[in-house]
Each structure stands twice: as C-alpha cells, then as structure tokens.
C-alpha cells in the first residue's frame, strides 16, 4: 500500500500553507521531505495525519480515500517535533498508549512495550518519569511510542531538531536502521540536507507549500527543476 497526496491546499491565517502539494510514498519506502523552514513541511504532515483538514485535494492510502477520516482512525504514526510526551504517564505509559487505544490486553501491552524499549536502548526503564529524562531519552521514548502500534505509515517531524550535534549522528543512524529493519513506509521531515540523504531513500523538496521536485540526490543534482533546487542542493 502506498500514500498519495493529491493537490493538497490549506490556507492558514490568510496565506497558502499548502498550495497544491503532491506526494507519493511507495510501500516500504522512506521519503525525506526537505525544505527551508516555513515551506509547509509540518503542515503537510499534519494534513496527512488528519490533524488539519484540507481546503481542497485529497489523501489516499492505496485505494482508500482518507480525506475525511479523523486522525484517530487513520492508523498513521506521527512523531512530533517537540515529542509531545504525556507528562502524567511514565515511559511505559507513553510507549504503550497506542496499544491501549487499540484495546490490547495489559500483558500483551507490557510485552510489546518492553520489546520497543529495547529497540531504542531504554531496556527496563519503563517506570521512569518523563520529566526525569534527558533530551535524547525523550526522543527515544517518542520514537518508540510512534513505532510500537505498527502504524501503516510513520511520519517523523524533525526528530533530531532539538538535540545537540554529538547525539544527532548516532540517533540518525539508529532511526534509519529501525525503519529499514521493519520495512516501514515513512516520511521523514528535516531542513538538513545531510540528514535527509542519510535517512531517506528518496528526497522530496518543498518550497512555499508545494513539492518542487522528488528523486534521489543524484537525480536532483543532475536534473534540477529550477535554479532554486540547484542552489538548495549545493
């Protein structure tokens, strides 16, 4: 199954935040959505997730039109830029939240949470409180929380944005590995070219609410759609 966004248009505060954005993500593919800040990357993710309704256009999963399906029924995962962890729940409570909403039994939730915590290197730390975690640990909890219900599409919104340089490199390769192992269909938002190339199999360049061009770095460099793309990838 693949994701298709057709001619997505959203006006926010009188300006066109999404201005006819088109995006396709094939099954098992990781697309890096790249663009300067304010280009509409987060808005597009929110529209795909169902947190923001489109003024025009549509969102499809395979042959299923999701455009008017509310967020909680889309079975997509979104990792928020500032993680948006639940402050009143423990690490395990956060990671297991999606499974709880699916109506799983407590023992199954416990087992899968433990499993997910070991993917992100937080084995046995389920009882810790969110406000005692470092930035990198919060990031791992947010990642585990997003991946553990096995969403059919994973969206990561600048997942490394708030972290310092030293841990960025390590976490970046960990995320790529996690997504590849599980053959996850994913959209990875970043404004950093290096990060986009490292994680994404394909790049989608965004500017002023539109997807300007998609392809691998080599394709985009050899045949840039316009001068802006050429300059941006330099």
């Amino acid at each position, binding site marked *: 199954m693949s994701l298709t966004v057709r001619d997505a248009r959203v006006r926010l505060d009188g300006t066109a935040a999404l201005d006819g954005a088109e995006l396709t993500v094939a099954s098992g593919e990781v697309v890096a959505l790249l663009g300067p800040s304010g280009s509409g990357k987060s808005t597009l993710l*929110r529209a795909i*997730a*169902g*947190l*923001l*309704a*489109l*003024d025009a256009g549509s969102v499809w999963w395979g042959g299923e039109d999701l*455009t*008017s399906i*509310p*967020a*909680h*029924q*889309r*079975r*997509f*995962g*979104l990792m*928020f830029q*500032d993680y*948006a*962890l*639940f*402050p*009143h*729940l423990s690490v395990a409570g956060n990671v297991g*939240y*999606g499974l*709880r*909403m*699916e109506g799983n039994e407590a023992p199954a939730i416990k087992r899968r949470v433990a499993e997910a915590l070991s993917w992100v290197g937080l084995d046995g730390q389920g009882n810790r*409180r*969110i*406000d*005692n975690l470092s930035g990198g640990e919060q990031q791992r909890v947010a990642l585990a*929380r997003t991946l553990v*219900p096995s969403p059919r599409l994973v969206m990561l919104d600048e997942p490394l944005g708030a972290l310092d340089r030293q841990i960025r490199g390590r976490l970046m390769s960990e995320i790529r590995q996690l997504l590849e192992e599980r053959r996850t269909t994913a959209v990875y938002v970043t404004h950093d070219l290096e990060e986009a190339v490292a994680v994404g199999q394909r790049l989608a360049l965004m500017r002023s609410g539109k997807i300007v061009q998609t392809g691998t770095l080599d394709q985009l460099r050899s045949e840039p759609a316009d001068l802006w793309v050429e300059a941006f990838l330099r």
Partner: protein
Amino acid sequence: MDRRRLALGRAKLGRAALGRAVLTVLPLAFLGYFFAYPVGRILLMSAGEGWGNLNTPRLAGTVWFTFWQASVSTVATLLLAMPLTWALSRVSLPGRRTFTALVTVPFVLPTVVVGSAFVALGWTGSVWAILAAHIFYNVAVVVRLVGGVWSRLDPTIWEASAVLGARPARRFWNVTLPLLRPALAAAAAIVFVFSFTSFGVVLILGQLRYRTLEVAIYEAATSFLDLPSAAALSVLQLACVALLLATAGRLSNRLAPPRLTTSLASPRRSRRTAGIVVAVSFGLLAVPLLALARRSVGGFSALATRPTGLGSPLAAVANSLRTAALAAVLATLVGLPLARMGAGRRWGRAIDLLVMLPLGTSAVTVGLGFLVALGEPVDLRTSPLLIPIAHSLVAVPFVVRATGPLLSAIRPAIREAAAVLGANRQQVWTTIERPIVARAAALGGGMAAAVSLGEFGASAFIVRPESTTLPVLIARLLARPGAVNFSAAMALAVVLMGVTGLLVLAVDRLGEPRW
C-alpha cells in the same frame, strides 16, 4: 467538509464552545460580584463621609506603627533567616530536604495559632511578641525563595573570586549578596506585605494597644460600628499595598537573574557549622509550638466537661471542616478555569494580576465589603455560604498559582499526539485531560481547604454565632479572662495546628513538580 470537526474529531462544536464560554464567564462573574463589587462599594463609601470621621493623630500613629513594625519584621526576618537559608541551600546536610519541608510548617499555621503560641510563652501585649511572631511566620519565605536561588549559584564564581584574592567575608559581600539580590528583594516584598497587613497576630498579641491598619479597620467596624471610617482605612491600606507591590515589582525587574547551575560542595568544617545553625534555628522555631502544646494540657478536658459559653467546640470543628470543604469546591471551580486561561500566554499576565488582587486586598476589607454590599438584592449576609465564599476568594490565588503549572501540560500537541495514536475525543478526555485536571483539582482543593481552615480576618467580620469557625472561637476564648478559657483556647489551637499540618503535608506531596 467541516475542517474543525475533522481536527477535533467531534461534531458538537457548538456545545463545546458554549462550555468554554461558561467556564470563562462564571469565574469572572464570581470574582466580579464577590470581590470587585464589594470592594468597589467600599471605595465609594470612603469617598463620602469616611475620611472626615478619621481621628488624624490616632490614624497617624496607626500608620506609623504599621510601617515600622513591618519594616523591622522584614529586616529581622531576613537577617535571622539567612544563616538557616545558607545551611539548607549550600551545605549537603543529611535530612536537608526534610528540614526544608519542615521549615514551611510555621508559614501555613493559622495566624490565630501563631498568636496563641506566643501568648502561651507569656509575651502578650508587647511589641516584641508581634515582631517575633512575624519572624516565626516568615522565615519559610526567605528559606524557600532565597534558598531556591542560592542552592543553584554556580560555585565557580566563588572559586574565581577566591583565586583573585577575596577572603570569604568579601566573597559573600561582593559576589554572593549581589547575585541573591533579586531573590532577597522578592522575599522582602512578600514578608513586608504579610507583616503590613497582619491581623490575627496583632489583634491577639497587641491587645489593641498596638494596632496595624488592618486591626484599626476591624475595630472601626465592629467596636465603633463606623463603617465609613473602616472603608476609608481599607482604601488607605489598599493604596499602601498597591504602591509597595508596584515598587517591589519595578525593583526586581531591573535586577538581572544570576547564572544558575546545580552543584553542592561542602567541606567538613562548613557541615559542622551548618548543623549547629539548623539545630539552633529549629530549636528557636520549636519554642512557641512547644509552649502551645504544654499550655494546652488540661484544655482538652476543660473543653469536654465545661461549656465555654461561646458554643460547642465540636460544632466549631464541624463548622470549620464543612466551611473548608465548601470553600475548597468553590475555589477549585473558580480557580481551575482561571489557571487554565492564565496558562495561555495571551491572558497570562492579566489573569495573574486579577487573582492576586484579593490577596493584596486584606481579608478584613473583603469581610467588610461583604457586610456593606451583599445585603441586596438578595440578602446573602445571613447565608451559610457567605463564609465559604469569603474563604474561597482568599484561596483562589493559591489555587491558581499551584495548579497553573500542572494545567499548562495540556497543550494542543498532547491532544494531537493522543489522536494520532488512535484516541477519539472521549478517550483523549479520559486518558489525558481528566487525569491532569483531577490532580490539579485535588491540589487546588487541598490548598484552598488549608487556607480556609486558618482564615481569620474575613471570618472575624462575617461569622454568625451558629457558624463560628475554629480560629474565631480560639480568638474569642483568648479574649476572655480565666485560666480555663486560656487552656481551652490552647487545646483548640493544637487541634487546628494538627488538622492544618496533616492537610498541608498531603498537599505538599501532590504539589511535587513531578507526576
């Protein structure tokens, strides 16, 4: 397609908007009718004959006493609390956190209990007793506010000044003190306002030989039945407090916050000194409370066997508990929506100012305002709800301050995160919002109940014989002659101290910044 329905995952947006509007308007209406309107009436009333009635030389004496006792109380509190603040914030003593929690106990004790404790020491009728009681009360303010900053000062700045040749005394004077100045200014402002508007302590210990403006307001209204003069005095006091707070606010804004870290280095020698400081400070703080406990012996049996002539003490306990419960509910209903609004950045400052006003306005003024304003259209002055309403006004600032940080956790992103993980609107409420609100409500309600249990200023005005609360009964017993009445008052003060103490301990656990 309705985009909002999709975003929120619900259809009945109209009802939700209505609910929000009600939650906004009701607390404001409550504060408007029960605070702004009565205080406004007092302003109007004083504008007429009130000022003419005032006996000028006597008033000048009262204002002078109010100012100088507040100044002396503030300076003495700062000086005496600094060694303890240092010991608890800069030295890694065993049991440090427990001591820091214990030091808060005097601060939350009802004024009547503190007054009684110093009466038990036999210091009645002296200005020293009033000053000592104010210091006893406010040590916690300094330890908490100044210690909070002191414990996080970067130790490298001392090392730097030591390397540059400064001796310890100079380091304190040239480095530590300037960095602590904002915290010291904030603590001083709070101690000054509390001492300036002091009522229960001064009424009990000053025995009307010494009176603050607050006591003079009470006296004018209840002994001389001169409401216009009382109103004029209230306005005078309101103006003084507002001026003070504004000045303090300007001062502390101008001071840059110091650089903070977390580390605690303490050589063995300073640990011994700190241990002595803590022992001496706690010894001194315990003296009045021990005296209170000792003088209460015999009071319990007197209460059980002899009528006080002022109504049953058990009934007063029941009244106090019932009032505290009602005040907790009211203050939570009013305070939580305000705290929620205050958590939004746009209204934050305005809400903060609005809810702090009742605190700056003395409780006595609020009580007086009730008597003046609430006789019509419906005469609420005889309503059993009157005292809980007055208490809730005094408690709302505490509720808002305590619950604001908890409620600000409910951000849109948190709700969206839950939605993406599969929670529908109902589930977002039950799993995310409700637990957070419930905890905030428990915390706010507990705070409000503690405030209500100890509230004396407003109650002294509006209490009716059948609704006497514990603090009022204690004050009345103390005003009567006889050893039996005295030990009965001490016994009730011990009860009040116990109940308040337990409640505050419970609330303190809830109020921990962690979940």
